[in-house]
């Protein structure tokens, strides 16, 4: 990690689809963005403004057409897929709107999955850690349930526990409360806040909910593929 303690730095990010065809369309028109360690940021904007595309680029799931991405001090352009995959598994946590849990695995196995993918033996210590995370998201005792046996809010909690299990520098959340009721949504936000406070993990959260966005330290607004406003409420 470099001295600036930036977990994310984007400069001049452009993204076009169908490059070289008559239907070529540029979705992102040169995004510059920096997120420092411990920041709790909301990414807001109308649908179609390019939020999800930007999140995928930051999550190393898509490559930008041009521009530079630095994650935790690593310049990621020109890396091969395996290097990107490794960097992703070591520094980034994902929470998606539709939970994206593996239906064949229990809550506990889902939380342990990033470690299993990394080839780690599931030791008693790792298991204790995962159980503690599930406990922290309020799912103590539900560790052996399959996703289908859990409510939407509970599934999202499992996804959060999973995202945090690798102690990521940055958690990317794509409308994590999108399909949850207001009360549950508020609880999930509170939970994310608690992890932000306790572990110093940075969060970048795409949300449509203005009230939840208002609770964040920083709000970045995207419209038509450009950042149109960037405001902070809490002193860093």
């Amino acid at each position, binding site marked *: 990690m470099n001295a600036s303690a930036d977990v994310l730095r984007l400069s001049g990010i452009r993204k076009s689809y169908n490059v070289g065809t008559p239907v070529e369309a540029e979705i992102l028109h040169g995004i510059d963005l920096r997120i420092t360690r411990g920041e709790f940021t909301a990414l807001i904007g109308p649908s179609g403004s390019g939020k999800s595309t930007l999140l*995928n680029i930051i*999550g190393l*799931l*898509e490559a930008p057409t041009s521009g530079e991405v630095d994650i935790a001090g690593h310049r990621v352009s020109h890396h091969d*897929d*395996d290097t990107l*995959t*490794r960097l*992703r*598994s*070591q520094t980034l946590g*994902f929470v*998606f709107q539709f939970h*994206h*849990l*593996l*239906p*064949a*695995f229990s809550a506990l196995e889902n939380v342990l*999955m*990033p470690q*299993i*993918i*990394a*080839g780690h*033996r599931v030791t008693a210590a790792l298991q204790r850690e995962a159980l503690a995370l599930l406990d922290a998201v309020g799912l103590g005792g539900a560790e052996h349930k399959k996703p289908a046996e859990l409510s939407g809010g509970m599934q999202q909690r499992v996804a959060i526990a*999973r995202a945090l299990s*690798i102690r990521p520098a940055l958690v990317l959340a794509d409308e994590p409360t999108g399909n949850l009721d207001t009360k549950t949504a508020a609880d999930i936000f509170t939970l994310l806040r608690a992890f932000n406070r306790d572990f110093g993990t940075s969060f970048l959260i795409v949300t449509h909910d203005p009230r939840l966005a208002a609770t964040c330290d920083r709000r970045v607004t995207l419209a038509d593929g450009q950042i149109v406003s960037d405001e902070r409420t809490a002193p860093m």
Partner: protein
Amino acid sequence: MMRFELQIALRFLREGRAQSALIVGGVMVGVAVVVFISALVAGLQSNTIRRTLGAQAHIVAKPIEPMARVQIDAGDAGIARVQTAPRKVRSIDNWQQVMAAFEAVPGVVAASPMASGPAIALRGEGRNAVTLFGVDLARYDRIVDLRDKLTSGTLRLEPGDVLVGAELARDLGADVGERITLTDGTANSTGERFQIVGMIDPGNRDLSRRSVYLPLHVAQNFLGVPGGVTSIDLRVRDVFAADAVAARVARVAPLTVESWMLTNNQLLSALNAQSMATGMIRVFVSIVVMLGIASVLVVAVVQKTREIGILRAMGASRGQMLRVFLLQGGLVGLLGSVLGALLSAVLIFGFSHFVHGADGNPLFPITLTLPLLGYACITATLCGMLAAIAPARRAARLDPARAMRA
């Protein structure tokens, strides 16, 4: 370490239970068919070879047939008549030395002199054209296991004794201990009387109907070749190398040397055709099984697109996803082939116990060998992985962001 890949592969297979069961069932049936047919054909072939070779020498050396004579008929210009020399019993010169030389040829394990020729067997009203086999029983027993083929009586050949084919005895209505007359078939021959001391079943009906074994020197006198032999029979160590050994034997003496492979050309080509048919069945069943595995895995990749996207987002590499699906193919092949091996054992048990020939005995022995089972399991597992290559590459190439939206 493939712990992750194995864990995911197993879980994916368990999740698509009906699909997995169907394709494992397909592999099972395919492997069972291949193993059963292979064992059946192997049993049939070794039985056929055993029966064929049981009654004949692996290699027979005979005097060279004299050249055909071409006669030009002067009266009818241009028309030639080809006439082979009249058949008569010919003997091998210096056969004792020749036989000793044959025994020294590598690959030859036994040699036996034989004086054979045609005769007529008579008893009461019955008359049969027969072939006399004059043998030195001690030596001949090492060429053809007569003891094994003796159906009644005793195996001995004193002067005046004959061993006859069981069918011949039935045709003549003669039993052990009874007498038959042998003549050379010429009008002024009164023939000689012999006592049947045993009956032989050479495993071939035609041979059984015309075989008469008698002591070598008796046959020599009867056939008019005192002290001579008409052929030397050899036994070789490896029956399928008989051709090569025959070629070496032919260099020792100026004789016509024929191996069983030459005289049973048709049988050999039938066996080869059988092996080829089995091979084709193997190949086509493998192809069908592979297509089945591949189609199921293609569907599985589509069904699991989202999960693949999630795993990739959580740090699974392309290589890991590739191996997850290759392993699924391999596991399906392995599990299916183990079950198929069990099924083939059941089929073979059923065949040996419930399918009988006309005589009420099992047709021929079939055995399931461990190498065959191992071969089947390894091939099925490899075929499964081979079939999984295309689907696995597809899974590995999936773009994680797009896959998760699926």
